[in-house]
């Protein structure tokens, strides 16, 4: 590639800059008039008067600003000798910015700010930043206590990505399990069975949203009329029954084909699921309660005895869901959120202590006391999560 010597850049950009300055001068006059009318017409959305920030020699004047939460208007005056951008930063995130403010010119910017401490830029990347302190207003406090639906969108989108990622893993792992079963490799199928369950158990707190598929993918014999002989006994546990109780792959091929079809249908469905924010805490609390009340005592993996790995995956999913909700709800319900985190850590510890160098012991080797201790921790976690929705105005 040869270096071009054309007349494009950068010299023309300097020329353009001069023209822009001249042009902008005309526009500023027009703009000033327009601004006057616009400000006159502005509704009571600007509780603070415009804050003038002058930038010169790599510093802001003033360089410490305090405003009330809500909408603020900033007028940025560029008294430096180069074009600059002005930003309000929350950590590394730019909340609002105005680009390309030419030397000698002023631009106006509106920002809707939540209470907190922010930084403002003052020229070059290396220039020291000023501070912007936003104090709570009655309106912002009310919003924090009862976050509007729109504030959950980011968290719910991440949650949907989580569901998509897990169901992708689920389909891949189930396809591998299916291949082992179809090729008649019992040992390999046992290994892959345990892997395939993990992503499913991570999203199990949302199973109420796909109850039909859940009943096909994960029913246990205890709840079926003819137990293991019941035609509705399908999915993971039917395969588990073959692999660990019958020690045989006989009759598993069609079951495995069906399971793969069901998890694939689940994967296709999660993208379109419309999950209301309250469902996260609701579904999680409900699953954890049922684990504490029945699953820990009775067990679910009757043939493989791998219940502890299931619980671990359930808790991992719970942990992800709570982490996603945290930024949205921590201001409204700081105590409950802190309590949830403590209980989550406790429940994880109760599991970790059972884990040996070879992983978890078979569930029938876990003492009654250990099971009760685990059930207690999970119950406490379920109760803590159960308090969340009403505390943030979602009930």
């Amino acid at each position, binding site marked *: 590639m040869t270096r071009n010597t*054309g007349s494009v850049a950068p010299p*023309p950009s300097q020329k353009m800059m001069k023209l822009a300055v001249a042009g902008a001068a005309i526009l500023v006059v027009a703009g000033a008039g327009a601004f006057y009318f616009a400000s006159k017409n502005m509704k009571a959305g600007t509780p603070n008067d415009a804050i003038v920030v002058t930038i010169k020699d790599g510093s802001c004047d003033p360089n410490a600003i305090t405003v009330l939460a809500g909408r603020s208007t900033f007028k940025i005056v560029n008294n430096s000798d180069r074009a600059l951008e002005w930003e309000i930063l929350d950590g590394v995130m730019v909340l609002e910015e105005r680009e390309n403010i030419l030397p000698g010119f002023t*631009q106006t910017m509106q920002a809707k700010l939540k209470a907190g401490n922010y930084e403002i830029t003052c020229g070059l990347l290396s220039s020291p930043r000023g501070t912007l302190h936003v104090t709570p207003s009655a309106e912002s406090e009310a919003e924090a206590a009862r976050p509007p639906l729109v504030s959950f*969108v*980011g968290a719910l*989108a991440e949650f949907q990505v989580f569901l998509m990622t897990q169901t992708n893993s689920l389909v891949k792992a189930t396809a591998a399990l299916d291949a082992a079963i179809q090729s008649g490799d019992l040992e390999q199928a046992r290994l892959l069975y345990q892997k395939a369950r993990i992503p499913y158990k991570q999203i199990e707190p949302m199973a109420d949203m796909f109850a039909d598929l859940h009943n096909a993918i994960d029913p246990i014999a205890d709840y079926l009329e003819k137990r293991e002989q019941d035609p509705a006994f399908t999915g993971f546990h039917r395969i588990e029954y073959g692999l660990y109780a019958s020690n045989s792959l006989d009759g598993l091929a069609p079951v495995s084909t069906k399971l793969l079809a069901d998890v694939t249908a689940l994967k296709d469905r999660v993208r379109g699921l419309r999950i209301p924010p309250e469902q996260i805490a609701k579904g999680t609390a409900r699953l954890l309660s049922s684990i504490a009340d029945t699953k820990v005592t009775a067990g679910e993996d009757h043939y493989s005895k791998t219940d502890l790995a299931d619980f671990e995956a359930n808790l991992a999913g719970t942990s992800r869901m709570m982490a996603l909700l945290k930024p949205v709800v921590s201001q409204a319900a700081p105590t409950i959120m802190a309590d949830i985190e403590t209980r989550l850590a406790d429940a994880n510890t109760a599991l970790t202590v059972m884990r040996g160098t070879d992983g978890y012991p078979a569930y029938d080797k876990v003492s009654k006391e250990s099971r009760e201790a685990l059930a207690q921790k999970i119950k406490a976690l379920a109760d803590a999560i159960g308090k969340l929705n009403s505390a943030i105005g979602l009930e």
Partner: protein
Amino acid sequence: MKLKTTLSASLFAISAAILPRVASAEVAPLDLVGPIADYKVYVSENLEKLVADTKTFTDAVKAGDVDKAKSLFAPTRMSYEAIEPIAELFSDLDGSIDSRADDHEKAEKDPEFTGFHRLEYGLFSENSTKELAPFADKLMADVTELNKRITDLTLPPEKVVGGAAVLMEEVAATKISGEEDRYSHTDLWDFKANFDGSRKIFDLVRPLIEKSDGEFITKVSGNFDKVDVTLAKYKKGDGYELYDKLTDDDRAVLAAAVNTLAEDLSTLRGKLGLN
């Protein structure tokens, strides 16, 4: 022609600054969840590609292969430029990955001038890989960190939707001058990625306002199409011609389209109830 371009960019900036924002509550917030989730997947895929491509690019720089490194500069950048609408979410890394010499006190000689454009300066202006190895390592470390960070980053919907407009505004105000890739003149590659990245966001939220705002949809997609058709004229091999091959007429077409896109897309946040 250029004067007109810059004037309308300034006019846009001023009007965007002073006009009160009109909120709309026609779109149900939960309808935004799917598009934002899909956008997150788009970002993750681009970052996976960025990390892989940057490895090959920086390896070539470190191996002293000037020609290979030069040929990889523009294509490697594309996945970064495609996600530029959300660069405001990681301004620290954006600074070290993609800042220009003008952002730094000592310009090209500033030790803080790192990233793609520092490598571009060495490769295209000095025609050498001499002393570029530490910058190559730093770029690789930065894109790796970015990929890791984005995995756990919740994307605020107002930043995603607003970012599509802010990027078009930046193209209109500065990039159109050819300032970004001033040493390599590979700006058209960046433009392609910027427009695609911005359009991705528009396309994802489009179904939410298709019925209520059909005219707006037609206008915006028409302008994106115009940009595509114009850029397609400059396709060369897997990439694009150098920026000086762009005729004044085509530059005017691009400038007009991007100005209108910037202006139109700046209303998208309001239309989606995200102000």
